């Protein structure tokens, strides 16, 4: 039973880790808390759903389609809203506020257009088989989630550490002006960072939609709380921390639901977050840069 | 003359880079003391350590007989330390007068509820602040600009405003980070005159500066840093002739070639 819960927790945790990863990437490179991020998550899920339901695509195509849609949306929003503010060297609060407004606008439009009822992926989107690993039953959907997350994490790690783009991303995250002086194309790098984080959000959206078998316009907003908790627990701006914290939170939530009460599940994220804020604000791995003047 | 500020074995590291390594020096009350050294020598970091913007990794800072190393930033102003910044930090939208009045913050004590009820003690305090601020503006030559927006002032005027803001709390020690930066010789001479008048009012000055003519002219003592370490300490004449200093600024071969100290500018 315990092992099963652990497995379920890791599956859930991988989706959180993926979500938090894109968010951390965006925060680290673009230096802004972008609240529309949750919306990319929803967009990815909805596009993938449309792909499967309306276009009859298989999941193997719908998933990348959803990811791409989310990525493009991220770039569009960054270009329209955040780049002008960055160019005008507006205070940090301004970027935060404009994304607040944008997310309210987008969610309202979306729920007006689509209504708020829950949609699901059609039966058969994922094969219904399962494997038994010892006492643990791993459904095909769950396996898919873990595998996809692992692949994306590995891919991202390779990108960040072995490619020039990764180097550019890290440089811009460290010091934008210095990066510019080193002939790094900062606007292009920023755009690619947006694209990447949107893609990660979209992937997380599809996978969570599969795992929980529920897709609705406000799902991104629900995830944002988890996302925030994960990045604070993992340390703001710390990529490895985000992954670790995501997995931890997934496991903690499943355990809490299983051993205490399912109602408690939603409070776990916030409780852990407050605990970390009080006890170890630099995050679990202690690597975030936290203090002000 | 006693040591108003004594810094002992001060060190600071940033992720493996040592910015300040075991620096010690004293600033005597009532003097103008200069902190010089090539770029990257750790001078601004030292200022940040003294004003509390950056926590120290080792050593002691004793101001007016008190160990202030663990005091928070805002408490140091109350103890009598003020500072200006290399890149002027203005309160852009506030008026010139309000800026100086803001600088007087540590000295004001009428509690909040006095303010809300409009009690006489509060009102008297506000009047006194406004009058004192205007006096300071006259002292630095900005009285006609009192009502203007701080962000609209010219660079040199903002410098003087920053100094006035620092003086508003009646500090005993004023730290000046490159006050002459970006100034032409005329402005620099004006600044030197102003700083002498500040010192004549009993304020001790510790300044970081690259303009050697300016430094030699107004400083009575100099401490020289290089790569985070103190390499010389003494009067301008002593420091000018110190081979270690010459080597730090000009390199080994030039040091060997130099035999005469430079003459100060007229």
């Amino acid at each position, binding site marked *: 039973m315990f092992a099963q819960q652990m497995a379920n927790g890791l599956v859930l945790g991988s989706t959180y880790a993926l979500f938090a990863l894109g968010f951390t990437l965006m925060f680290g490179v673009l230096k802004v808390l972008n609240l529309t991020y949750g919306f990319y998550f929803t967009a990815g899920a909805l596009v993938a759903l449309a792909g499967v339901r309306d276009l009859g695509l298989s999941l193997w195509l719908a998933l990348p389609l959803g990811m791409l849609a989310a990525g493009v949306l991220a770039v569009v929003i960054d270009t329209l809203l955040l780049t002008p503010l960055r160019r005008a060297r*507006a205070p940090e609060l301004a970027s935060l506020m404009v994304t607040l407004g944008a997310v309210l606008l987008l969610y309202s439009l979306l729920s007006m257009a689509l209504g708020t009822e829950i949609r699901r992926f059609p039966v058969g989107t994922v094969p219904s088989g399962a494997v038994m690993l010892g006492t643990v039953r791993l459904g095909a959907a769950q396996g898919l989630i873990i595998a996809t997350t692992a692949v994306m994490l590995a891919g991202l790690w390779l990108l960040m550490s072995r490619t020039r783009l990764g180097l550019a991303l890290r440089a811009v995250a460290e010091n934008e002006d210095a990066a510019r002086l080193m002939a790094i194309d900062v606007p292009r790098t920023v755009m690619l960072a947006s694209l990447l984080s949107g893609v990660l959000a979209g992937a997380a959206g599809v996978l969570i939609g599969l795992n929980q078998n529920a897709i609705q316009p406000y799902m991104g907003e629900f995830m944002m709380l988890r996302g925030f908790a994960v990045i604070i627990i993992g340390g703001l701006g710390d990529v490895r921390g985000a992954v670790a914290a995501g997995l931890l939170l997934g496991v903690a939530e499943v355990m809490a639901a299983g051993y205490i009460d399912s109602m408690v599940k939603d409070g776990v994220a916030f409780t852990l977050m*407050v605990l970390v804020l009080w006890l170890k604000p630099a995050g679990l791995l202690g690597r975030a840069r936290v203090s002000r003047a | 003359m006693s040591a108003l500020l004594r810094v002992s074995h001060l060190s600071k590291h940033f992720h493996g880079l040592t910015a300040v390594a075991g620096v010690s020096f004293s600033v005597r009350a009532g003097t103008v003391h200069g902190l010089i050294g090539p770029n990257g020598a750790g001078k601004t970091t030292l200022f940040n350590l003294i004003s509390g913007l950056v926590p120290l990794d080792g050593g002691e800072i004793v101001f007016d007989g008190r160990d202030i190393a663990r005091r928070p930033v805002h408490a140091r102003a109350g103890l009598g330390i003020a500072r200006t910044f290399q890149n002027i930090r203005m309160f852009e939208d506030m008026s010139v007068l309000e800026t100086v009045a*803001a600088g007087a913050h540590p000295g004001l004590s009428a509690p909040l509820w006095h303010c809300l009820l409009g009690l006489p003690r509060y009102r008297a305090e506000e009047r006194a602040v406004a009058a004192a601020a205007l006096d300071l503006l006259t002292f630095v030559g900005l009285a006609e600009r009192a009502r203007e927006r701080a962000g609209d002032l010219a660079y040199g005027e903002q410098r003087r405003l920053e100094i006035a803001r620092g003086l508003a709390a009646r500090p005993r020690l004023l730290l000046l980070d490159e006050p002459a930066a970006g100034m032409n010789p005329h402005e620099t001479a004006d600044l030197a005159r102003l700083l002498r008048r500040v010192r004549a009012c009993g304020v001790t000055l510790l300044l970081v500066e690259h303009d050697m003519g300016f430094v030699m002219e107004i400083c009575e003592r100099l401490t020289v840093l290089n790569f985070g370490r103190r390499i010389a300490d003494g009067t301008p004449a002593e420091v000018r002739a110190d081979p270690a200093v010459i080597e730090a600024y000009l390199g080994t071969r030039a040091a060997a070639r130099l035999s005469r100290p430079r003459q100060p500018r007229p």
Partner: protein
Amino acid sequence: MPLWLEDFLWTYQTLIHSLGINGLLALSMYVVLAVGQLSLGQAAFMGLGAYTGALLSLHTGLPFALVLAASALVPALAALLIGLPTLRLTGVYLAIATIGLGEVLRVVYVNAGITGGALGLGGIPDRTEGWIILALLAAALAGCVLIGRSRFGRAMEAMRSDQTAAAVIGINLPAYHLGALLVSAALAGLAGALSAHSSTFIGPNEYAFETAVTILSFAILGGTGSPLGPVAGALVLTALPELLRPLHDFRGVFNGLIIVLVVLFLPRGLVPWRMPRLGKTP
């Protein structure tokens, strides 16, 4: 009072109450923005005040004044809980923690029996009167103006303009940040209780993210140079959907759009004037 005025006030009672309550909420946002912080907990604090006040009125016989006081106190305590640890952290942490608070409280309201669950609480006694709201709003506004013109106001503007310089001239940033947060929570809680006792019904979804952003939009539209700005913003954004009925359903879209447009094109807001901070300049 002339009959026509009585009729007018009666017909538009709900709107007038809303205007006053939103004015208080706008001030609660202003107080936090005035020290350069972004707290998105106004809706959460409002909800705490609403539920506290409603529960007290429904289950105890406390006079309204005490109920209101308690409704201001409880959110302030919650603010202390998330405010204290985030004091020395960068501003982003507070923003996140306050959004999180709102979400968690919503879950609590839905699940705890005493709060009526997802259906909310009804039958709250109608104890709010227009003059109470007006008096509290006027007092809060007066307080903000008086403080704004004082050394506290100068300190707050200094903090907002340049934190480092403000710290160096002796301003105790953490104290001001915490103080502002507590005051803002108390004001929002007060507004929540007043609102609960006016509409006589509250539900868990009224104090969620969308409400928090709406409150922010009051302050952004109005501009934050003076406490009058956010109040003006609140008046405009509350009255418009009422006066233009079709706009009502588009409120979310409208508010969001306002924020985006104002931040991008009108950064000082509609009311760009700035309060003087030194009483009468000599």
